[in-house]
């Protein structure tokens, strides 16, 4: 039987994408452990040509985007459009999609499921936010301020890779956010307040379209 394919984009052209890329390593490592074939479009490899070619030739069952976006499109390296509503949403056909991208669920996610044929699309209605310590930009994984938001958003692909369905994976992520909110809410520093505000915001922004019971 063919190995299941997992395509992930990890551009790194600014602080936000760099952090998301580094924090994606735990997802990639788990996917390897679970026996998936990983296609990582890292840095400049996260371009439209690569994206389209690799999807068409590999037909991944799981696609994860790290990158900026609008309600109609998601970008790769240096804001090159990878996927765009009313253009190439068909590339998500038969896949579960997770987009750690702003506004992706507002419109594009719906089109990917209804027109593109994606089994499910998990994303954010509003911008994804997190706090960071610029002194940690060389080692984002050690940034304790960024951890609550990035770790809880990682919970979605981790849960999917462990065999949970889309609805449960989103719930697990939101439960982790709730635990972090309780933990950080007792802190009195302003940075803790902003971390909690980001967690609450991301929890409200996170959602999905498509089949809630689908698994990888």
């Amino acid at each position, binding site marked *: 039987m063919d190995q299941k394919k997992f395509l992930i984009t990890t551009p790194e052209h*600014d*602080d*936000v994408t760099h*952090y998301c890329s580094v924090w994606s390593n735990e997802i990639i490592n788990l996917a390897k452990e679970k026996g998936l074939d990983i296609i990582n479009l890292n840095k400049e490899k996260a371009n439209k040509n690569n994206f389209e070619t690799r999807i068409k030739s590999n037909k991944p069952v799981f696609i994860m985007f790290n990158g*900026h*976006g*609008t309600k109609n499109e998601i970008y790769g390296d240096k804001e090159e459009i990878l996927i765009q509503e009313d253009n190439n949403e068909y590339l998500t056909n038969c896949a579960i999609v997770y987009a750690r*991208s*702003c*506004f992706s669920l507002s419109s594009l996610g719906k089109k990917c499921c209804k027109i593109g044929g994606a089994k499910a699309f998990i994303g*954010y209605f*509003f*911008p*994804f*936010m*997190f*706090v*960071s*310590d*610029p*002194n940690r930009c060389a080692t984002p994984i050690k940034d304790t*301020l960024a951890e609550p938001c990035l770790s809880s958003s990682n919970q979605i692909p981790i849960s999917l890779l462990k065999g949970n369905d889309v609805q449960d994976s989103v719930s697990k992520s939101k439960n982790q956010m709730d635990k972090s909110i309780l933990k950080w809410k007792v802190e009195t520093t*302003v*940075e803790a*307040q*902003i971390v*909690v*505000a*980001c967690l*609450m*915001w991301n929890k*409200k922004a996170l959602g999905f379209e498509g089949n809630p019971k689908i698994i990888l």
Partner: protein
Amino acid sequence: MSENADEIKIVLERIRLMPRTIQLNIGTFGSFTRDKLLDEIENKTEVGCLVTDMYMAYLRSFKEDVK
């Protein structure tokens, strides 16, 4: 998005207390230090309004906790 003058005042006061050593990353809009955030909020830009909404939702959550 919020353009309520009282809410903006509250959030500005809060953000002024934010250390200069941290930044708020707002997806597509980029990364913002304290001073950049204050400018965005004062000028009621899209980012400024988003941050005001985010912070007010956080403050309102305490009212919910009490209930």
